[in-house]
């Protein structure tokens, strides 16, 4: 199995490079995480080159979120939380009441989404982060798959007037040829990427499952099923038109995400399709269980987050689809 090099638990390297030049009045606000954070290197580099745009509070998640609200109320564009992997779950109340209710421009980074912090076990594996973020009114939810897209979306998110949750389990390997993708214009919030065209089944995916979906499409093609792969990096707002256009052609849909099957991308897609164009649908994601310790690779196999699952699900919905 081809396994992409992920930036999640590894080295985020240059993810913050050039950001201060792209975003006016940027402020990176961080707490300190007692464990070794993979972001330490990137943050240290950023703090060194842009000391005026970096604040470390050395405080709990709740306090850091409240202080971020104070910074945002004074006109700063705040990037929050590279060193706070459990930000969303530990400071939900503060995020809801101090950031989302007044709709402040703060970007929350999800640095331990899904199963990537594998060795720490269930506590540090937030398999329900998208559900939490998606249910807050006015919160934008973004799940990029590769570094280039992450950089674009981060800059875009920092220009958004309200709060944004940005997952950063991104791969250093590019999903598409960057030149080709650039020529199609900048990718907006609320958009999606058509990564592979097909006629038989739509595979809707985000984050690391994009690579699995592309792999699955290869396997399906050998079996004579042409899969269309749509990357829904914008989980909220969902790229409905791209999704509906694809499903109208294929008549069947598989959603793959590294998240609980409850409340994430799969739920979002199912909600839209049920209302507007019902087709057979299967969800590939975590069962209703917590994770456990293990390497990320082992855990993805164990919890059935692989291209084989997507192939199986695609075969099922393809067999069920309506014949016109």
């Amino acid at each position, binding site marked *: 199995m081809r396994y992409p090099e992920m930036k999640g638990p590894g080295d985020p390297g240059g993810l913050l490079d050039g950001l201060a030049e792209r975003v006016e009045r940027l*402020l990176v606000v961080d707490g300190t995480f007692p464990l070794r954070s993979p972001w330490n290197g990137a943050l240290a580099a950023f703090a060194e080159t842009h000391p*005026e745009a970096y*604040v470390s*509070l*050395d*405080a*709990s998640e*709740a*306090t850091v*979120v*409240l*202080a*971020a*609200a*104070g*910074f*945002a*109320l*004074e*006109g*700063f564009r705040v990037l929050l939380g590279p060193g706070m992997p459990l930000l969303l779950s530990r400071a939900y*109340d*503060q995020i809801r*009441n*101090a950031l989302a*209710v*007044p*709709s402040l421009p703060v970007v929350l980074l999800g640095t331990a989404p899904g199963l990537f912090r594998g060795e720490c076990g269930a506590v540090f594996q937030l398999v329900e982060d998208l559900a939490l973020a998606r249910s807050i009114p006015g919160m934008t939810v973004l799940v990029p798959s590769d570094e280039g897209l992450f950089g674009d979306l981060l800059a875009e998110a920092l220009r958004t007037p309200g709060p944004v949750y940005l997952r950063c389990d991104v791969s250093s390997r590019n999903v598409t040829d960057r030149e080709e993708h650039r020529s199609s214009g900048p990718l907006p919030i609320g958009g999606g990427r058509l990564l592979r065209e097909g006629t038989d089944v739509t595979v809707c995916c985000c984050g690391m499952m994009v690579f699995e979906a592309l792999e699955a499409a290869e396997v399906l093609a050998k079996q004579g099923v042409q899969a269309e792969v749509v990357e829904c990096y914008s989980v909220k707002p969902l790229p409905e038109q791209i999704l509906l256009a694809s499903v109208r052609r294929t008549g069947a849909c598989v959603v793959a995400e590294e998240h609980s099957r409850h409340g994430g991308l799969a739920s979002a897609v199912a909600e839209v399709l049920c209302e507007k164009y019902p087709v057979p649908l299967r969800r590939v994601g975590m069962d209703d269980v917590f994770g456990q310790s293990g390497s990320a690779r082992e855990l993805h196999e164990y919890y059935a987050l692989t291209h084989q699952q997507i192939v199986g699900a695609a075969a099922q919905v393809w067999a069920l689809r309506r014949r016109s």
Partner: protein
Amino acid sequence: MDDRCRHFLEETALEIRKDVVRMVSLARSERSALALSLVDVLVYLYWKVLRTFPADPGNPLRDRFVLSDGLGGPALYAVLAAKGFFSRDELWSFSRLGAVLQGMPSPGRTPGVDAPGGPPGQGLGIALGMVMALGKRRCDGAFSASGMSGEETASCVPAVFCCMNLEELREGCVWDAARVAARDDALGGLRVLANSPGWNGKTESCRDEEMERFASRFRDLGWKVTVGDGHDFASLEEGFAALSAPERKDGTAVSSVRGAPCGVPGVLFLRTRYGKGVSAEENRDVASEGRPVFSRPRLDSALRELERRGGGSGTTPQEESAPEDASFRTDGFHSSGKEEFL
């Protein structure tokens, strides 16, 4: 403080109290007790301490005010209206659908409200972020004009006041923020007003004991602690003067007066009384009776009581711009009948 000044503040506070009782009654809310306890503090703050720009509420030079306990909202709204941030008529739609004045303070919706309030203990963290942000903006030259000396610039940096309720100080995140704020002798612009209301049902000594526990925790963290009487303007004058005289951790004074960019933050504990000015509220035993909605007769008697106490000389600015009580009572007041209102 001279007598004229004290008289003006007392008259103003009386008018604010009347407005609080009216707006809370119109909203059929039971939330007047905490607001009434805050009135004198807010009147002193807004008329004597804060630098405000009612015609330009977003002016970057304004002092910031964070009302952490949103239940005090009616007092803040009545004060903001009297200062001219918005029309006094807005008070009568407090917490109704579509109102400018939400149940909890909402920045962006209400002119003059700088920060969201509501969940207990939220305000101090936000005020901490604001005072740090103001320090950063000072470094960018946001508050300096050409030809100003360093000291003049420092005196232009706005201060951030955060008003909290004693009960909020039980929240853990308050102490996390308090620890961070006192860490590096640089956030002297942060001033906390700890409103410590006593209740008839709750003994004064019990309240004072709790206040002293919290005060010593602030002292341990390096904060400057002052205690005063929240219903006595002379005591408030002393308290705010002590709060605004910044000092460093080692006790040495800092030269600039306002929004000191250095020094330790300060906290002013204020002994107050729930429902101050309205005896039906002051003497209520909440444990057995609960907090009441003001019925029409109760409202009338509360207003009469306030009139008696203040003498109703009609010399304050609010009085001049205020509509006649009679018209107010017949206008938006109960059209659906007294029984339902009761």
